């Protein structure tokens, strides 16, 4: 067998289901009655969301002085959380776009889930720069909108690049996700029993009927969206990293930042997908669709990206010494042994040491191990951003050294952003198919017109394959 044939022969979905089993299994989650577990989780998430809304309200009323940011740390939790959330999103785009282009068929079980996570994470991320501008009601000034002052934004500023990059990222992720949803929404529309569902799913399915004349354009649109989302995976976090790298501060002004940020983003994103998917898989009994094979591959991606992140930490340290720049060297020694040493070593432990467990098949196929590791990686990646940003409280002049400590409002907004994320995620799980039915059916063996149903027919397009 050729490699290609082997890839296509691989059984990705356990239990040898029929097409209708897939439809039934995934649609039933959306169609069944609301469970108590869901309600409890939703209640908890909404409570956190209210904390977010309340804190933002107070912030708009009082100003960003309620945060711990102060000279010399003009940036604090806000940018830490922004980079953290944007990073989380990247795994979704990697799974939906890059793995699609590389024909990694195992992605079909997790891509919808990961794409939803991307969108919600980017929404959480967008909150932070928006409120950090201080006068959130003048946010439209970052966009080149004609105004009475005859003023245009400064396109040479990395903060403006950020607005363009993250805004585009959000819009493209949303479109990609929606295009993927259309056939599944049509399935739900056709199964809908009550009027409200019929109208709502009917409206959002846009009249999809699944004729091949529709699929023809659809497939190309999906391919194009995957193609243009692929550079986004690399560009968005690269541009985010230029917020730091274009400055002339020690520890920030380095060329390693873009690749280092992208690897970290994918690493943390996969960890977040893992945490969420393990819960959803357990609650909704999706073990046959999201098999150990899928989980193991995700763990391998985490191992690889974790090694890249570890390598970047090492390179940074090496260059700090090798460059002979005393400020640069000091910045890194300060990270590891300065007042925030505990944050640095939390980061190293969670991001570099813990993922090494995945070298062993026993650990990378153990659900409890991967659950704990995925949470630790997220903690570690949050601390990575904390370390990058807040060890700068000691830069060039010792007389200007300072100390950053967050206030209760910083913590409230951080916790609240998780509330927003989980509220949206729970709504997604409740009302939309969390696994792409059309794509999962497509990787079932009987979906392949060439390998099922007897000998190949020459009539379908010229010769054997």
């Amino acid at each position: 067998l050729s490699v290609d044939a082997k890839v296509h022969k691989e059984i990705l979905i356990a239990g040898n289901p029929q097409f209708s089993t897939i439809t039934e299994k995934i649609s039933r989650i959306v169609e069944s009655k609301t469970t108590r577990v869901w309600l409890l989780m939703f209640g908890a998430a909404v409570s956190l969301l209210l904390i977010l809304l309340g804190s933002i309200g107070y912030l708009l009323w009082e100003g960003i002085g309620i945060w711990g940011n102060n000279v010399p740390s003009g940036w604090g939790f806000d940018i830490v959380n922004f980079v953290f959330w944007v990073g989380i999103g990247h795994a979704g785009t990697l799974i939906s776009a890059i793995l699609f282009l590389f024909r990694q068929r195992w992605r079909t079980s997790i891509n919808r889930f990961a794409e939803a996570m991307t969108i919600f994470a980017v929404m959480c991320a967008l909150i932070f720069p928006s409120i950090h501008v201080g006068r959130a009601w003048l946010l439209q000034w970052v966009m080149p909108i004609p105004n009475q002052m005859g003023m245009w934004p400064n396109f040479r500023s990395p903060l403006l690049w950020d607005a363009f990059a993250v805004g585009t990222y959000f819009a493209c992720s949303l479109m990609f996700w929606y295009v993927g949803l259309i056939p599944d929404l049509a399935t739900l529309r056709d199964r809908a029993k009550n009027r409200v569902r019929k109208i709502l799913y009917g409206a959002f399915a846009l009249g999809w009927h699944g004729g091949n004349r529709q699929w023809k354009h659809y497939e190309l649109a999906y391919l194009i969206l995957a193609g243009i989302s692929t550079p986004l995976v690399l560009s968005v976090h690269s541009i985010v990293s230029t917020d730091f790298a274009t400055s002339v501060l020690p520890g920030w002004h380095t060329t390693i930042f873009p690749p280092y940020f992208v690897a970290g983003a994918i690493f943390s994103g996969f960890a977040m997908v893992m945490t969420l998917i393990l819960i959803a898989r357990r609650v909704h009994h999706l073990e046959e669709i999201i098999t150990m094979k899928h989980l193991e591959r995700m763990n391998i991606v985490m191992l690889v990206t974790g090694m890249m992140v570890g390598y970047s930490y090492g390179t940074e340290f090496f260059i700090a010494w090798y460059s002979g720049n005393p400020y640069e060297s000091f910045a890194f020694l300060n990270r590891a042994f300065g007042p925030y040493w505990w944050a640095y070593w939390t980061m190293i432990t969670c991001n570099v040491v813990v993922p090494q467990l995945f070298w062993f098949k026993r650990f990378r196929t153990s659900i409890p191990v991967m659950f704990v590791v995925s949470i630790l990686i997220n903690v570690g990646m949050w601390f990575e951003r904390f370390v990058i940003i807040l060890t700068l409280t000691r830069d060039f002049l010792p007389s200007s050294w300072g100390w950053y400590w967050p206030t209760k409002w910083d913590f409230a907004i951080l916790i609240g952003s998780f509330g927003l994320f989980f509220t949206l995620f729970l709504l997604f799980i409740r009302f939309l198919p969390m696994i792409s039915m059309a794509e999962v059916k497509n990787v079932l063996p009987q979906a392949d017109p060439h390998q099922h149903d007897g000998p190949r027919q020459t009539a379908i397009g010229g010769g054997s394959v």
Partner: protein
Amino acid sequence: MSQLSSKATGMLAAFESPAALMRAAAKMRDGGYTHFDCHSPFPIHGMDRAMGLKRSPLGFIVGAVAFCALTGISLMMWWMSAVDYPLVISGKPYFSFLAYVPPAFAITILSSALTALFGMLILNRLPQLFHPGFLSVWQHRIPSLTLMQPGSFWRASVAVISRWWRQNEQSGITETRRQVNDCHFCGRLDRWLFPGRAQGTAADSSQSEYVQAAKVQGTIAE
């Protein structure tokens, strides 16, 4: 059931598997039929060729829009930063190309994505609130006059149906028409939004085509 009623506008046939559907599609293509479609819950690899369809033009459309967007945003940023509102930033040139790459890239990507989405919808004539095929193709209610075995249909979820269904819902198969009327909301709203769509070309010429097509398949019970 040797022939369809004079009101019939199309014909459905159900197949056991994607492979069977694809063989049928190839026969239809070789028989010279053009007004037919193959419905499936997921895209079937190779079906475009089996049906004799041309490649979608979407790629060229997106490419053209992306090029225009790149040119447009670059000119816009140059005009804003170098002509209309020159801003001195550390004495750097007003239009230093590299600094403008990230926004230009973002806008190019954004407009390509918008074109891919809306271009796909327009090429597929979506949104379209109602399609007679919904009633039988996608649902368990299978009209008795269509040429399908109810049990096998949904299992494979694949069928060849006539495109005329979309254009001539007024003169549909009796059984289907009753169901069309059941769907008050979608049917009426769609007619209201797209009044032209209900009047298609006359179905008569195609009708025999479909009967023959079905005979080619051997699915018609004579």
